[in-house]
């Protein structure tokens, strides 16, 4: 393998890894607020991408993306209000099954709206063949968009959770729901907010990556499994570690083509998930102690 190809693999790994990290952060936001793993997380990504593609037919690209994110955000909030908000202390099994049901419904609705075809937004700048030279390596401009927008998103999220009232209230709720409620925070609204936020982040991820990876009605589930892998790798609930874990998985997966046919790419990622679950469920960066305190 020559140096060029090596860097191409790295770049591809970073691109996919970024999206896995975005899905993982979506998982984390809802998990922190509710203790629920939302199995429909991947569908938010698909929904964002699909909606943006449809809207782009009569809206300019930036507005289409923005509108798609808003629409998915509303869908996320609605899902929480309709299906989760009013359940009284649901069991874990019940929540797993409900969110899996939701993921299937969203996927099937998408199938009926958009069909089975593969869709994509145009490249944000340039075309599929244009490239930028970065320190001797040629990189598609879309990769810059993906990494750039995701980085801004992580920065904004971190600002949101640390410096805004709503963000701090959400953190207070995840630390101790009962205490937060006593301090006058409406915990239920915080949960709704977490679904909206997580849907918005997923949708934006789906938009920026669609020129490269394309979207299809059923592209959510593999993303969900890999996003979960990344969330676990980083330690459930820890979003900064998820970024590192996402890049790691993306790059590993990218290089796996070396040793295995591309058709088995997912097998690699999922085997990593299984191995991590077996040997270190608290994640590579998480502390064992902290993981054992959590309720599953």
């Amino acid at each position, binding site marked *: 393998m020559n140096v060029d190809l090596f860097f191409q693999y790295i770049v591809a790994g970073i691109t996919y890894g970024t999206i896995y990290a975005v899905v993982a952060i979506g998982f984390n936001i809802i998990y922190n607020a509710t203790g629920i*793993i939302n*199995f429909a997380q991947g569908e938010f990504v698909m929904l964002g991408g699909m909606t943006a593609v449809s809207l782009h037919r009569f809206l300019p690209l930036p507005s289409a993306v923005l509108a798609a994110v808003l629409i998915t955000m509303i869908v996320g909030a609605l899902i929480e209000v309709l*299906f989760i908000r009013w*359940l*009284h*202390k*649901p*069991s*874990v*099994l*019940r929540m*797993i*099954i*409900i969110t*899996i*049901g*939701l*993921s*299937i*419904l969203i*996927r*099937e*609705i998408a199938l*009926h709206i958009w069909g089975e075809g593969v869709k994509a937004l145009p490249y944000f700048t340039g075309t599929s063949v244009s490239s930028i030279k970065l320190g001797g390596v040629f990189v598609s401009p879309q990769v810059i968009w993906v990494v750039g927008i995701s980085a801004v998103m992580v920065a904004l999220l971190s600002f949101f959770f640390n410096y805004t009232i709503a963000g701090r209230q959400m953190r207070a709720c995840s630390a101790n729901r009962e205490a937060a409620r006593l301090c006058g925070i409406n915990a239920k609204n915080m949960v709704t907010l977490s679904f909206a936020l997580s849907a918005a982040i997923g949708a934006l991820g789906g938009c920026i990556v669609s020129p490269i990876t394309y979207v299809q009605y059923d592209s959510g*589930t*593999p993303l969900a*499994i890999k996003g*979960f892998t990344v969330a*676990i790798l980083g330690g459930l609930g820890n979003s900064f570690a998820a970024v590192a874990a996402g890049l790691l998985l993306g790059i590993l997966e990218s290089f796996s083509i070396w040793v295995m*046919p591309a*058709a*088995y790419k*997912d*097998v690699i990622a*999922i*085997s990593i*998930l*299984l191995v991590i*679950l*077996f040997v270190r*469920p608290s994640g590579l960066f998480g502390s064992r102690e902290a993981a054992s305190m959590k309720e*599953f």
Partner: protein
Amino acid sequence: MRSSAHLALFGLIAAVIAVQQITAHTGSGYYLTQLTMSAYYSLVIVGLCLLMGYAGQISLGHAGFFAIGGYISAFLTTHDLTPLKDTVFVAFLNKTGILWAREDLYGGQLLTVQPWPACIAAVLFTVVVAYIVGGPVLKLKGHYLAMATLGFGTIVYRIALGTTALGAADGLSDVPPFKLTPFLEVSGEMSARVQNYYIAWGLVILAVFLSLNLIHSRIGRALRAIHAAQDAADAMGIDTAKYKLNIFALSAVFASVAGVFLTHYNGGIGPSEASIMKSVRYVAIVAVGGMANLWGALVMGTLLNFLSLRGYLGSYDDAVFGGILIVIMLFIPRGLLHTDILRDLRALLPGKAGEEDA
């Protein structure tokens, strides 16, 4: 087993015979095809019900076990060994009678494994996989167990889809009939329709009989105890890890046997049998049936699979199962076929909070 369970079992046998008689007298024998297929899916569901409902362990990968059974049996009984005929191993197999020479559909000569040894190999391999996967997976709980089994299912699906030797997206076809005895044969031949209906349902009845015995035994109590309070079960001397693993393997065997038989019945198998959607479907049906309710799972499994196979659900097939999952889990988490169903429904009325199980 309790006498009420015996009675219900006789009821099932009577119903199976009655349905066949009705189709025979009304000239609607074509229904038997879907009823036969439903029976095999119900076999998976009975096993999953033992695992989920009684032992309390979710599996989102049971289609994987079904597919392992089906694919191995299909591969072994269709893969032509003629080019390897002179290798020591194949020659040895040939001598033991495990192989048979037969004609394919176009009159060409094939040397393949016989269905019986293929079936046994498939089920044994499933058991091995179940123990290898189940060992670590069943140490997990809740979300982690769900994701890990989902991951297992996805791996099987991806391997089925990506392996040329397994026919990739087309799957394997031209699987020969499975001669169980000189008079009984699993095959999709029109002439063997009635016989296959009885083979399939006979298998289900056997599975239900064994499962009912198990539920009402020392082992069944231990499994329910693990589900109800694992630490207390542990304190009573129950090796919880071992029991969970054994019931996981047993339910995998049910799924695998169903996979083998249905593959011979259909004459082939495709990757969709391994898909996550199939696994979710099985879970959905166990949930609708009321989780720890073998009869509920059986009735709903037969009904829903029959409707789906007849195409009554149209292009909304998967959506229906997704919808069922949500509706049942939101409103009647104890399932539809439950003696207290009215109470559950009343509890839905505003102002009355339903009680939640742990």
